[in-house]
């Protein structure tokens, strides 16, 4: 998932820094274990009470097949959309992202080298109206993603993986509404009693990881489907159901689903609070000021919004507040992309010099310090299965300008080398971070022009003809596998580099390598996750040698929660967001 740093609350931030009142003392943040996990407050809670979730960004979709935001994917799974398999509640480290059976009896069986997957539904799993969840519901849910003119905005991996023929770049099956090509879909996804079988056109070793991370494969009841009008309609299969309607920009209230049977659920969902109230549209500053004040209902509140830098001193100096803060790895990695269409960046020595001159420490300091992130050694997040540091990026975090200058001098170019750096700007942090990078580069012999884009960003750098030498990027994996990091970002065939004159897809640096593409093919054919991870690591090594990217930072989530919260946890299972599967309130 791409990320943008553009914010509309610049002025608000500035004012909040003025309004922030410093107290005195010191305290302790609950720090993540390095793999994106943190637990705070009392470990286990009691049933009852109300948990409040305060947030800014409205949910774009609550339709399982259209949801594509990490926070919403996690909350949907914990509250109202169960899947065949899910990530467990209450686990940390690698265990947090090891799928466990949820609606299915087990985590699935694969055959034909990972091209066929089978799952069998448990007995007793029901919808909120008491009807059984059936294999047909699973099949119908998946089919909706093929109606790409109605069910828009969601992940579309199923279009490329399911063994449904394609025509003019789109599958011949166009979803359950028009039903063109239905026979092809029926061949690819078959139901036999409670058993569903998926036929893919290539091996999908980490398919269970995709099911647990996304909601594309969640069941959907055909009689509840009104196409686009069902975007905010929630028909629950989980422990909670929506009370009344969801109001975009305001939120909604979830109460217990009487037809949810915890005996059918081995994921560890505790379903402690009687009610969960989600409020959207609040500013980061207001949310965190309310959590600092910790009064009334806010004692039972959690948030997915980072603490603004202007409030750090207010929190650091107050031990009571600091004890309610957590700092864990976020799923996002910031990185730089040399533009392979730029004359100067075609020279490998210039790219090497750029890498050597990049000061990650200064970038992080300018972005908000250690609470913003830690230096990254790869574009792959450390929470990804099979992660390893990329040897090309294990040099000094502050860069080595002397070595960079020497490299540039041997590159056969005239110094200073003029480069243009295009980034998603418009905030003091992003502009300061860009200035920090420029300082290191210029010291090494570059002459950098900063090009902040404040309106649209990815639309601009997606154009292969954009005249810039270096781009900023941000990425979070769709599921904890390198298959959703390096392949979608650097496979030139998928992104149309060199073939599509209008767009480079997500390969913003216009990188093209047959060797790397071949490694991606090899990894995709792997029958299991670990062997795929090994090949993806080889591809990452090659990307590092080519300086196809320069990793900057693994972002951090620095969150506050109320004093009345129990079982507070954040882990990679919920993309680093608070886990509603374990959270309760003190009685």
């Amino acid at each position, binding site marked *: 998932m791409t990320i943008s740093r553009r914010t*509309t609350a610049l002025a608000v931030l500035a*004012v909040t820094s003025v*309004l922030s009142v410093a107290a005195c003392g010191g305290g302790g943040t609950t720090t993540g274990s390095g793999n994106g996990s943190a637990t705070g407050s009392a470990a286990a809670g009691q049933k009852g009470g109300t948990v409040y979730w305060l947030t800014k960004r409205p949910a774009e979709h609550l339709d399982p097949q259209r949801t594509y935001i990490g926070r919403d994917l996690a909350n949907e799974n914990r509250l109202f959309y169960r899947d065949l398999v899910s990530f467990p509640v209450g686990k940390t480290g690698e265990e947090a992202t090891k799928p466990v059976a949820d609606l299915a009896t087990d985590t699935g069986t694969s055959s034909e080298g990972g091209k066929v997957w089978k799952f069998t539904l448990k007995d007793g799993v029901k919808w909120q109206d008491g009807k059984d969840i059936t294999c047909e519901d699973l099949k119908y849910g998946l089919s909706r993603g093929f109606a790409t*003119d109605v069910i828009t905005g969601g992940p579309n991996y199923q279009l490329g993986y399911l063994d449904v023929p394609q025509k003019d770049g789109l599958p011949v099956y166009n979803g359950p509404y028009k039903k063109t090509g239905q026979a092809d879909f029926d061949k690819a996804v078959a139901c036999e009693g409670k058993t569903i079988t998926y036929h893919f056109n290539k091996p999908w070793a980490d398919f269970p990881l995709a099911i647990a991370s996304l909601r594309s494969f969640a069941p959907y009841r055909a009689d509840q489907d009104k196409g*686009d009008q069902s975007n905010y309609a929630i028909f629950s299969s989980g422990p909670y159901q929506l009370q009344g309607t969801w109001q975009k920009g305001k939120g909604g209230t979830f109460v217990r689903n009487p037809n949810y049977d915890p005996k059918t659920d081995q994921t560890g969902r505790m379903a402690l609070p009687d009610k969960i109230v989600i409020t959207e549209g609040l500013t980061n500053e207001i949310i965190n000021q309310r959590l600092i004040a910790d009064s009334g209902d806010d004692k039972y509140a959690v948030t997915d919004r980072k603490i603004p830098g202007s409030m750090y001193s207010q929190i650091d100096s107050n031990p009571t507040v600091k004890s309610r803060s957590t700092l864990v790895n976020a799923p996002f990695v910031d990185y730089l992309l040399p533009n392979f269409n730029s004359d100067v960046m075609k020279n490998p020595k210039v790219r090497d010099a750029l890498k050597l001159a990049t000061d990650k420490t200064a970038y992080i300091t300018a972005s908000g310090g250690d609470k913003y992130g830690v230096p990254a050694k790869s574009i792959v997040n450390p929470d990804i299965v099979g992660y390893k540091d990329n040897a090309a990026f294990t040099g000094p975090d502050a860069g080595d300008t002397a070595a960079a200058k020497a490299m540039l001098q041997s590159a056969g170019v005239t110094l200073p080398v003029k480069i243009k750096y295009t980034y998603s700007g418009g905030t003091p942090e992003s502009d300061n971070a860009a200035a920090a990078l420029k300082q290191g580069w210029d010291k090494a012999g570059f002459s950098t022009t900063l090009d902040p884009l404040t309106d649209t960003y990815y639309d601009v750098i997606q154009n292969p003809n954009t005249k810039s030498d270096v781009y900023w990027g941000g990425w979070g994996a769709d599921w904890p596998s390198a298959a959703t990091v390096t392949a979608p970002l650097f496979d030139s065939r998928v992104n149309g580099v060199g073939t599509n004159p*209008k767009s480079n897809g*997500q390969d913003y640096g216009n990188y093209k390598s047959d060797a790397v593409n071949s490694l991606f093919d090899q990894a995709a054919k792997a029958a299991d996750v670990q062997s795929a991870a090994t090949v993806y690591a080889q591809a990452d090594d090659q990307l590092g040698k080519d300086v196809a990217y320069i990793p900057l930072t693994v972002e951090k989530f620095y969150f506050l929660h109320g004093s009345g919260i129990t079982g507070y946890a954040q882990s990679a299972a919920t993309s680093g967001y608070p886990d509603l599967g374990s959270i309760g309130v003190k009685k």
Partner: protein
Amino acid sequence: MFAYVVRRIFVGVIMLFVMSLVTYLLFFAAPSDPARYTCGKNCSPELIEQNRKALGYDKPVLVQYGEFVKGVFVGREFPDDPELKKSAPETIASCPAPCLGYSPLQSATVTSLIAEAAPISISLAFMAFLMWMVFGISGGIIAALYKGRFADRALVGSALVVYSFPTFFIGLSLYIFVAIKWQLTPIPVYTPISEGGVGAWLSGLFLPSLTLALIYIAGYIRLTRAFVLESMGEDYIRTARAKGLPQRQIMGKHTMRAALTPIATVAGLDLGALLAGAIITETVFNYNGLGKLAVQAATTYDLPTTVGIVLVAAAFIITANIIVDVLYAVIDPRVKYS
């Protein structure tokens, strides 16, 4: 007078059409692709093209505008896909006249979005209007009556200070200190009368309305003071004094009547503009009114919602203008319309 009002309404309607057309043209002149915004991140060029067709963005701008105008009078259905209507009629959204379009990004008709947001902006605007008219005008009169004395200096001085602060500063200060830190008021949440009664409605409106009102109060104190002082210096006031009329009668009947005419004009226009949404105040207090909806629509290239809000905002301002012009004649008998 009647003919004048009818003529003004007719011109107003023409203006609304012109504004909607200009919004359409401006929208399509922008460099961004609205179809791209309806597609997820892994969107291929083929999918974008498919969405463009499904949303009707592939048609010429004037054809799209024609369909929009038709929808205002006879209603529309979304998506306009005969095949889908035949195979899955439950997926077709009906938008009865006056249909302002369907927002694919909000999954709702624009009319319903505006109907949800308008009561919030209207409540906020009227509550703020009440506050600023009462305190602004009375403050201005006091300042004029005590010209050069402590009360005048204090009122004018504080008005200048408040006027210098941006709205978001006042809003955030009130929210953080009054509601969060000192807990003098509950956390402001808009509660419709139908859900929480008048008490909850008023309580929720207090801080955001005060935020808006403070800026206007400051302006109206200075405005009223200036107009009252100007009226007090008129010959007919001197004559009234010379005749021995009591001060209350001079102020109420002669001074205020003349001073109120320009204030009514400004107040009407201010209220009209505010009804279309107070962007900053609604954002700070998380009130999902027209202002917040407008920002959301503009930043996501949501054409139908943008056009709908532009029309509603323009309608408010045009209506306010007409009312102000009519009020002019009521307040000041010298004004005649033919």
